[in-house]
C-alpha cells in the first residue's frame, strides 16, 4: 500500500498575524512555521495504517526551499520519503493541480490531507485533487479504516455523521479524531536528515484567484461587567441591549 500525504507549511498557532506592503502580504518576520496541524493528523493516520510493513508513506508539499524544515519534521514523525514541488503556492487550485499531476505519474492507493489549512482556512485542496484525478474525495473525516482494498470512513455532517465505504483509490481530508498527532522521537529526528526528499518542478496552470489585500478585524469595545450576584442583569442586557436572546 502506498499513501501520499499532502502537507502545508503554516504559521505556528500562537502567531500574532500582521501584514506588510500596505496589507498585501503576510508578515513572515519572526514567524515560526509548522506542519499544518490537521495535516499532522492525516500523516499520523497514514503512518498507523502502514505500521508493520503494510505500506509506505510519502509526504508532498508545494513550496519553495524555505519549507524544507517543515518537510523534515514530517519525515521525523515517520514518513518514509518526501516530495517538494518547487513553487510558491498561489492558491488551492494551483496546489491541488501540482499534487494531482505528481500523483498521476506515481501510483498511490490513498491520498490524505488535513481538513483545512490554518492560514487561508481553505478546505479546497483535497476535493480539487479528487476532481483532477477523477477519484472519490471524502471531506472532514473522523475515522478511517482500510482492509487493503476497501476503506470504511466516518465523516462529520451537520448534527451527526455518515459511514462511507469506498473501494479503489480515493482522497480524504482528516479532522480531529482520525488519529492522535505523533511527536517525533530522537531516532526519527536523526533519520529524517537522511530520508529521500525529491524536488520536482511545478507545471503551469492558469491562475484563477489572487489575494488582493488583508484586513484585521476591528477592535472590540471594552467589556461590560455584570456583578456575579446578579446574573439576571446579564439576561436583561442580552435581551434589551444586544438583542440576541
Amino acid at each position, binding site marked *: 500500500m502506498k499513501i501520499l500525504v499532502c502537507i502545508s507549511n503554516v*504559521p505556528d498557532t500562537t502567531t500574532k498575524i500582521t501584514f506588510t506592503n500596505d496589507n498585501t502580504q503576510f508578515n513572515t518576520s519572526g514567524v515560526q512555521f509548522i506542519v499544518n496541524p490537521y495535516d499532522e493528523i492525516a500523516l499520523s493516520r497514514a503512518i498507523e495504517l502502514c505500521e508493520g510493513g503494510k505500506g509506505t508513506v510519502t509526504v508532498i508539499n508545494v513550496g519553495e526551499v524555505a519549507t524544507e524544515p517543515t518537510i523534515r519534521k514530517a519525515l521525523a514523525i515517520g514518513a518514509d520519503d518526501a516530495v517538494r514541488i518547487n513553487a510558491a503556492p498561489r492558491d488551492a*487550485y494551483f496546489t491541488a493541480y501540482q499534487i494531482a499531476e505528481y500523483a498521476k505519474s506515481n501510483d498511490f492507493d490513498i491520498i490524505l490531507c488535513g481538513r483545512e489549512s490554518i492560514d487561508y*482556512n481553505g478546505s479546497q485542496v483535497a476535493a480539487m485533487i479528487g476532481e483532477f484525478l477523477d477519484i472519490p474525495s471524502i471531506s472532514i473525516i473522523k475515522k478511517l479504516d482500510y482492509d487493503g482494498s476497501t476503506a470504511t470512513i466516518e465523516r462529520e455532517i451537520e448534527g451527526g455523521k455518515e459511514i462511507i465505504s469506498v473501494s479503489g483509490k480515493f482522497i480524504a481530508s482528516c479532522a*480531529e479524531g482520525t488519529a492522535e498527532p505523533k511527536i517525533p522521537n530522537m531516532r526519527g529526528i536523526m533519520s529524517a536528515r537522511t530520508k529521500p526528499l525529491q524536488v520536482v518542478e511545478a507545471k503551469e496552470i492558469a491562475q484563477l484567484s489572487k489575494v488582493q489585500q*488583508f*484586513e484585521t*478585524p476591528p477592535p472590540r469595545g471594552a467589556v461590560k461587567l455584570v456583578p456575579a450576584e446578579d446574573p439576571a442583569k446579564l439576561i436583561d442586557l*442580552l435581551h434589551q441591549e*444586544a438583542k440576541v436572546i
Partner: protein
Amino acid sequence: MSVLVYVEQVDGKFKKSVFEAVSYAKAIADKQSANLTAISIGNVGESELKELGKYGASKVLNVSNDQLKNFVNQAYAAVIAEAAKKEKSDVIVLSNSFSGKGLAPRVAVKLEAGLVDGAVELPQLDGGKFQVKKTAFSGKAFAIIELTSAIKVIALNPNAFGTKENATDTTIEAFNPEVKSTDLAAIVKEVIRATNKISLPDAELVVSAGRGLKGPENWGMIEELASLLGAATACSKPVSDADWRPHEEHVGQTGIAISPNLYIAIGISGAIQHLAGVSSSKVIVVINKDPEAPFFKVADYGIVGDAFEVVPKLIEALKAHKG
C-alpha cells in the same frame, strides 16, 4: 448572466443556511441584473421547493433521483456543473457547510472556476473586478480575494449574511442529467443524526465551556443553559483532548470556527488559538473566576465569578425571564 445556488437538503427539508445562501445569491443576481436559479438534489417535496421563491429564486431545478438520495460529492458536483452549463451561470453559490466544503472545490475544477470559500460579504464589483472577502488565519484576519476566471464559485459562511425575504414567482423544473456510475464509487452506508442536538456550525447561539468546569460530570448545567437558550454546546481544545466532550464540539483554530450571534464562554481563559475560532461571534459573554483571563479583552459582557455559583443563578434568571 445567471446566478446558480445549490440548496442542500436534509431529509427533504431546507435549513436556515440554505435560505441564507439563496438570499446572498439573490443579492449578487440583483447586482448583476441576472436571474437566480436554485438547484436541489435529492427527494424534496414541491411545497418545500416553493419556499425558495420567498428568498428570490425565480426557478428551481429539481433533481429527484434515488441514486442521489445520499450526498456523494463526486456525483453532486457533476450535476451542479451540468446545471451551471445549462443555465449559463457565471456565479455559483453554495453554503460553506461540511458538504459544501467537499462539493464547491469539485464544482470549481469542473468549470475551471475560481473559488472563494468562507465568504463573509457580498462580492465587490468595482472597476470590473470581482472581489470577495473571506475569513483567514482562523478569524485573526480577513483576505480579499479577486477571482479572475470567467465563472466564479462562492461558498458562504453560515450566519455571515442572514436571510432576506424577497418574494418571487418560482417555477419548478425537473432536471435529470445522467449520473456516471464512477461518480458513485463512494457509498453512503449509514447516516446517523443526533436529532435532539443543534448543529454547531449553523447555531445562532452557542454555550461553550472549558477546563474551568473541572470534569465531564459537571456539564449538566452547561447543557441545561444551552437547552433553555436553544443553543448548541461547544468546548475548548483541552476539554476535547481529555475526552470530556466529543471532538466535534471543539471550537477554535484547530477545531470548528464559528460566528454565532451569541457565544457564551464559561471557564475558558481565552488562549489565542481559541479566540481565533470564535472571535467573529457577534456578541461574546465570558464567565470566568480569573479577572485577568485574556477572554475578557474581547468580550462584550462578562461576569467575574465561579462558574459553579454563577451558572445555576443564570439558569434561574433565564427561567424567570422566559416566564
